């Protein structure tokens, strides 16, 4: 897209909502990347109206089909609600055919009782927490040769597993990972993506009763990588799940993390950080499915954009179903635009089917770092380089702090620094 930065936000709360504490709404919807070529041209005309602008209307996020069978998903056109912002041409054919290349190598660093093993796709733990929600995911699910399974044993305290996933091929590949946090365990699992790959990934995360699990997915790919990753968590009764994505590298990264509550009294926090440079497409589509009563969720994604055609997409779907009384939920996306020529799409989407909730809110902001900010900081003696870093680091820090791992935080800080250094003019 040749557009300059669009600083926009969107929302569509599909309720004739009575006033609910903490509920806010703002914004408007955005025009898709993949516009319809239909001469009737309904889409383009509707693109700026308040409501979904896709050509495939969908009543509710909850009704999106899921299946292990590829044939249940029609071929992608790019006009689907969930693909309208993704440049399919750059997806390395991951949406067209089964990715049959060798999966990136996985090296594990384990402590505190966590184990890792590989198992066949017929293992009982496969399919424990995920079902493909789109054709790309289904193709990879069926193409995966094996599953890498991380297990945190019941009752383990402070276990840790870092899986370094190193790509070294441009051949399209599928990968299947399963993380099982057994009852009342606590652990941090890091998925560290480096090198380059054309990868479609399914990650199943089974957070069992009373477990506390943090999964951190780092996309520190080289510039050429293409990465589609469906990371689905099933969260049992009284469990706590924190999911953190950090996307810096890659040509195209499309993450679709989801948290589905499978029992009451559970909590999910989903945080994300992304930094898009010239030409990069970084897309994050979240789902929090409150299908159980008395669960809590908090979503916060923050991103910075710089350079020509840096494009970020954030879509946050939060469903609060009829039986999810006592839900407390908040989601926010904040973008910081550092230069002209970028595009940032942000669509929070909150669907509430019950009024008996503690709170539900969402926010989306896109702010520009401009010359006046720079002047203000410099007029206080701060040199230009420091001023820029101050703003970006300050902005992203809120998420880095959620990682709660000083070493990892330090490393990511350095990445932010080098991102900033890379495009200084």
């Amino acid at each position, binding site marked *: 897209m040749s557009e300059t930065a669009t600083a926009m936000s969107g929302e569509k709360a599909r309720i004739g909502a009575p006033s609910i504490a903490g509920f806010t709404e703002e914004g408007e919807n955005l025009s898709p990347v993949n516009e319809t070529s239909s001469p009737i041209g309904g889409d383009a005309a509707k693109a700026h109206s308040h409501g979904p602008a896709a050509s495939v209307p969908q009543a509710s996020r909850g009704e999106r089909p899921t299946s292990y069978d590829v044939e249940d998903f029609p071929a992608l056109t790019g006009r689907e609600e969930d693909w309208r912002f993704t440049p399919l041409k750059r997806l390395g054919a991951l949406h067209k055919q089964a990715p049959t290349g060798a999966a990136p190598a996985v090296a594990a660093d384990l402590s505190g009782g966590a184990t890792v093993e590989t198992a066949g796709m017929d293992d009982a733990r496969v399919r424990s927490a995920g079902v493909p929600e789109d054709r790309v995911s289904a193709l990879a699910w069926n193409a995966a040769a094996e599953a890498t399974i991380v297990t945190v044993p019941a009752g383990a305290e402070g276990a840790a597993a870092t899986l370094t996933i190193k790509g070294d091929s441009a051949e399209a590949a599928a990968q299947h990972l399963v993380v099982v946090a057994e009852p009342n365990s606590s652990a941090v699992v890091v998925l560290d993506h480096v090198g380059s790959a054309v990868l479609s990934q399914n990650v199943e995360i089974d957070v069992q009763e009373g477990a506390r699990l943090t999964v951190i997915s780092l996309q520190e790919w080289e510039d050429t990588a293409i990465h589609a990753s469906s990371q689905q968590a099933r969260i049992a009764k009284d469990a706590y799940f924190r999911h953190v994505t950090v996307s810096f590298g890659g040509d195209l990264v499309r993450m679709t993390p989801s948290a589905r509550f499978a029992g009451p009294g559970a909590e999910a926090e989903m945080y994300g950080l992304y930094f898009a440079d010239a030409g990069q497409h970084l897309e994050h589509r979240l789902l929090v499915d409150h299908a159980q009563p008395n669960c809590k969720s908090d979503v916060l994604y923050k991103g910075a954009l710089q350079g020509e055609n840096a494009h970020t997409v954030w879509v946050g779907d939060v469903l609060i179903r009829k039986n999810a009384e006592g839900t407390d939920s908040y989601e926010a996306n904040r973008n910081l635009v550092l230069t002209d020529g970028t595009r940032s799409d942000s669509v929070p989407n909150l669907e509430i089917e019950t009024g008996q909730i503690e709170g539900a809110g969402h926010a989306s902001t896109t*702010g520009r770092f401009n010359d006046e900010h720079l*002047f203000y900081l410099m007029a206080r003696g701060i040199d230009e380089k420091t001023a820029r870093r101050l*703003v970006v680091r300050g902005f992203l820090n809120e998420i880095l702090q959620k990682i709660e791992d000083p070493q990892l935080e330090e490393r990511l800080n350095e990445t932010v620094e080098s991102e900033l250094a890379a495009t200084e003019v």
Partner: protein
Amino acid sequence: MSTLEIKDLHVSIDTEQGTKEILKGVTLTIKTGETHAIMGPNGSGKSTLASTIAGHPRYNVTSGSILLDGEDVLEMGVDERARAGLFLAMQYPVEVPGVTMTNFLRTAKTAIDGEAPSLRHWTKDVKAAMENLKIDADFANRNVNEGFSGGEKKRVEILQMELFKPKFAILDETDSGLDVDALKVVSDGVNRASEQNEMGTLLITHYTRILRYIKPDFVHVFVDGRVAEQGGPELADQLEEEGYDRFLVKA
């Protein structure tokens, strides 16, 4: 003692209609410890003068000079000017996303002093200065100016002035939008800085009410990009009674 000398300053800006000259020969000398008030009608170029001294890139100096103790200020970058001891309290302070006040104040102080302030003293100083200016403690955790009310922004400008201890402060309508209590609090801050640090002050204002608290040594009447008249504090009272008509007719 330091001197800020502005000599025959001509400044223009680029507009869609072409170049527009705004300052048409401003000459003004301020010494540390002195307070100069600048009064003048809307659009006469007061903020232009202030921003030009601070080095805002929008303003082009076509001729004339600004010297700080003989050093050419126009040769300095925006940040260098601040480090050299110039401070501009802006008429419209901008909101800076992502940067907390705490982080901002510490970074700026470090830049201005050339070394990081001792953490213990600094925290105490910031706290005390905030209390003096009746700024709530939780402002420290908020982003710079983000969501601050008009009056709060002005107070935070003065907070910075007190903490950074400039040689010269230019206060561009810092009194506008302040309630009576805030006006007093802010004036006290300016008076403290000029007494304790021998700060020189260039006070741009439309109202004599602030001059009841901050006593100017000199008053300059600014009209159409020039100083049209100067005098002592009595000139301010005269302006309040007579307005600018006399100068405008002449202009």
